[in-house]
Every structure is written in structure tokens, then in C-alpha cells.
């Protein structure tokens, strides 16, 4: 049931596919991340307007959107197939980047990989903060850990590889880069991304007592705001290269 044409494909037919993922789910594969974000935004708009049949989960990812729990109480896959045909006929509006106010994330740019990222970008270490914080980011999707958002927006020339050796422990609040993405670790965990800075108050990233629990929900525009280590009040400044982790 691979579609020939399909959702979000102003670039021409044949690039998007609607794939079955069991009797009650569809995986929509888009040509790239930009189209996936646009298709995800379109799904949310239509769900908001009540134009989408009951779907339990809408899960965007790097270049796909998963629709899971389609008519899950009804046996058989007829509802799934009906929705697949409908999706394949959609015209999807291009992504509008600035239609919502951005969430501002304060960052102390003093990460242990700052020099390495500066080298990869071909700039001075002091310019990393300026380049990174000038970028209009957007949460493309969540994964890895509850509340960990994959933020897109960096131009291709600023994409960096992961570290060859992952760290066994990255502190909560670490601001990190890998490939096209920027992310902020909501809690201490192992990690292989390049660390350029830290958020002074990482506990706002994930709060199960709040709705939504994640600060960085898919679709959210984000800007990083450089702050001085001294301005971040009572927080002890980490030693250079300190990855000993969370406070």
C-alpha cells in the first residue's frame, strides 16, 4: 500500500509514502525533515478542527510521522486503510516558522566541546554562542528520554558529527549538538553529542506535574539566549571540561 504521491509533496509525486505499521497505525514517510514538520503541523491543525478521525498518538520523527491507535477498539484494518487513502490526497501547506512566540532557553555557553565545535564551524570559540543563539530553532520531535526535544534550524554548514566516544554521563541541562539537531538533556544520562553549554535551570524541561510535561513539545519555536555564568545566580560554575554531571 505504498502511496505514489501523497501528503506534503509539492516537490512532486513519488517522494512521500504511507506505510502500514500494524492494523491500527500508519507511518507516513516524507522526503525530508522540513516536509515531515509541515505534515505534522497539518495533522495538528486538522485534529484541532476536528477533521481527523480518532488517532491516539501522532509521533513526528526525523522524516516521518507515525499515526498510532487508529480506531484501535475496532477489529480489522479498514479504518487504517481509509485514513491512508485520505492522507495520500492531502495538499499540505508549507511550514510557517514564526507564527508563534518562541520559548526562550537561557544558556551559559561554556561546554567542554565549545572549542571543537568552533573548529568544525571554522570560527573562534567566542563566536559559537552568537551563531547558535541567532538561530531560529523549532522542536522537530521528541525521543531518547521524556522531554528530550530534537531541535532543527541550524544551516547545513553548522551541522557537526557526534563525538567519536560518547560520554557515560552528561549533566542535566547540557546543550548539545549532533547532525542537524540541537538538544538539551532533561536529566543526567549517557550521551554522544557535542556539548556547547548548559541551561541554568534544567528542571523546567520536564515536569510531570505540568501539562504538557515537556517544555519542548514538537512544533514549538525555540531561541537560545546567552547568559553569563555570573548572572546565573547561586549556581556553582563547573570546572573546565567538567562532565561530572548534575548538581
Amino acid at each position, binding site marked *: 500500500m505504498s502511496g505514489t504521491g501523497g501528503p506534503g509533496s509539492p516537490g512532486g509525486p513519488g517522494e512521500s509514502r504511507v506505510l502500514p505499521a500494524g492494523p*491500527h497505525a500508519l507511518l507516513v514517510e516524507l522526503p525530508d525533515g522540513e516536509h515531515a514538520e509541515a505534515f505534522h503541523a497539518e495533522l495538528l491543525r486538522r485534529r484541532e478542527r476536528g477533521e481527523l478521525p480518532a488517532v491516539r498518538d501522532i*509521533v*513526528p*520523527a526525523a522524516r516521518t510521522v507515525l499515526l498510532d491507535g487508529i480506531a484501535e477498539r475496532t477489529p480489522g484494518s479498514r479504518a487504517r486503510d481509509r485514513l491512508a487513502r485520505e492522507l495520500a490526497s492531502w495538499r499540505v501547506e508549507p511550514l510557517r516558522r514564526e507564527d508563534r512566540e518562541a520559548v526562550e532557553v537561557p544558556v551559559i555557553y561554556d561546554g567542554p566541546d565549545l572549542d571543537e565545535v568552533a573548529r568544525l564551524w571554522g570560527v573562534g570559540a567566542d563566536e559559537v554562542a552568537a551563531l547558535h543563539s541567532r538561530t531560529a530553532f523549532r522542536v522537530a520531535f*521528541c525521543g531518547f528520554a521524556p522531554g528530550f526535544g530534537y531541535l532543527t534550524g541550524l544551516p547545513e554548514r553548522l551541522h557537526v558529527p557526534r563525538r567519536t566516544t560518547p560520554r557515560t554521563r552528561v549533566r542535566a541541562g547540557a546543550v548539545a549538538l549532533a547532525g542537524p539537531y540541537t538538544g538539551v538533556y532533561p536529566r543526567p544520562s549517557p550521551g554522544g553529542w557535542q556539548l556547547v553549554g548548559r541551561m541554568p535551570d534544567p528542571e523546567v524541561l520536564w515536569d510531570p506535574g505540568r501539562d504538557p510535561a515537556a517544555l519542548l513539545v514538537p512544533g514549538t519555536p525555540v531561541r537560545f539566549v546567552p547568559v553569563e555564568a555570573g548572572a546565573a545566580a547561586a549556581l556553582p560554575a563547573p570546572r573546565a571540561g567538567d562532565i561530572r554531571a548534575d548538581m
Partner: protein
Amino acid sequence: MPDGHVVPGGHVMPGGHVVPDGHVVLDAGRRLPVIRPGAPARHCLHVVRPGALTTVQDAGRPGLAHLGVGRAGALDAPAARLANRLVGNPPDAAVLETTLTGCAVRPDRPVVAVVGGAGCRVTVDGRPVAWGAPVRVPAGAVLDAGPAGTGLRSYLAFAGGLVPDPVLGSRSADLLSGLGPAPLTEGVELPLGEAVSGGPLPAAGPVPWPGAPAELVLPVHPGPRDDWFTGAALRTLLTAAYRVSPHSNRIGLRTEGPALERSRTDELPSEGTVLGAIQVPPDGRPVVFLNDRPTTGGYPVIGVVPERALAAAAQAVPGTRLRFVRA
């Protein structure tokens, strides 16, 4: 804690806050009980013997995959629901889920309990009592669910349910993300909800507890990434003899058997996964995703086992013969 009050389903809305006894204080100072079985908890279960891995589970956290939060919840959901029904609870009340070696607990009030799911010897203060049917446990007595004789995971339901603080609307432990109550350890106390009545034991009658599978047969819907594998790989999956690997856990049922060969070797960008997805890691041995699965994954999914078939997978002990068949 942010301002907000908890409503059924666990959403926090502006305008009130939760206090430690589980009540909600609205801005005006009016108190409302949180709607949940047996709240507020005044009694508890003491953990006497935690067993290899015993967790609190309910119906889990569906609908939060976009935040990176998985389903969790009882792996053998029909068994958990049946155990709840037999003690007079709502079907999604929180129960204990054991792994192979059972567990023992001591309630500090009299409680009606059911041990179901995997078959095991059940005792109260050392005296044998019924498995799979309601039993009375006096205050201070030890309810012991022994090692599983058949199957893998036993479920212990208590009238009134277990009521540790919910996280995102659920009391389930999620071993991948760390959400929910930690796995049981000796000496821990678990809050016990209030039972509705002190009436007669609920009638058990003939109860349809399914036995553990001698051979696990899992139906497969091919896709979404079956085209990342050779034609021979899909035929192998649907014809070969596999066994349940001892490395299986609540995240996935791992398998031993022939490796599945990919037709393309490039990297798959992370994409959303479903419960029951058969993911094929680089070693080629299929893994069936269970309730604590990651919400996104970067290895191709060759097919999907429908959810209703996963209860049997939850009871398949390591070494069980396993066949995948076309759904």
C-alpha cells in the same frame, strides 16, 4: 510544584494545586478528592520479598509518545484486568507484576487479594490458599506468591488497588524512562487504597485464566520497513523456528534463531515505533517491542505483532519455542 489541579487522567490545569495526601486544593481553598480507586490511602503493603523484578502496573500512559513517554502498563493486560475484576476493582487499578520468582507482601489492614497470571503456589502466613481466586489476607499476615510454575509474570491485585502517586495519569513503572514507582525492594511500603466493602468475597466462578504457551505463535503484519530486508529474510521470519531469549524484558521480547538479512545497509533516521513492532537490530535477531519500548527507534521494523497477541508473549519463559506467522 506548579499551580494546577489534578483531574482524572492526570492533567494539571491552572487554578489549584495538589497537596501531599492526594487531595486537590482549588484556589478558593476548597478541597476535592482526586478521583481514583480508594483514595486517599491510609494503609499500605510492606514488601517482605521483592522477588527478581516486581513492579507496580496499571493500564499505563497511552497518548504521550510525542513527548518521548512510552506506554508502560501491565504486560499481560488481560490477566491484570481479570485479577482486578476478581477483587472488585476497576479494571485499570494498579496491581503488582512479578517476574519468574514471585514476591511476598504484608498488608497492614485486612485485604481481599487475587494472585493470577502465571501459575504459582500462593500462601498466607505459610498456609496454602487458592491461586486465581479471591483470598482474605488478615492484617499483618504475609501473602506470598511463589515462583512461577507455568508462565513468567504473576499479577497480585488488592481490593482498593495500590495507590502510589500517579505520574502523568498512571502508576505504572516504566523501566526504560524511569517514570513511575521504582521496582519493589525489601522493606518498601506501598500505599493501599480503601476497599469499598467488607462484604462476602467476590465470586470467582470458573475463571478463564489462559495457560502459559508451550509454543508461542505470534501473528505478523509485514511493514512498515519490510522493504529494507531481502525477500528471503521475510520468508525466514515467517517459517523459521525461533526461541524466546533469556535477554527478554519489559522493553522487548528478544529472540534466538536465524538472523534476518537486510537489503540495504544505510542508516534509518529515527522514526516512531508501535507496541508489538518487530525491530531488527544489526545482529539480525528480531526483537518484539513490549510496553516499555522506546517511542522512536533507528533500526528497521520488518513487521508488527497486534497488541492482543502480546499477552501470551508476556508469559513465554526463556527457551519457549516461537513461530511468527502471517497475520
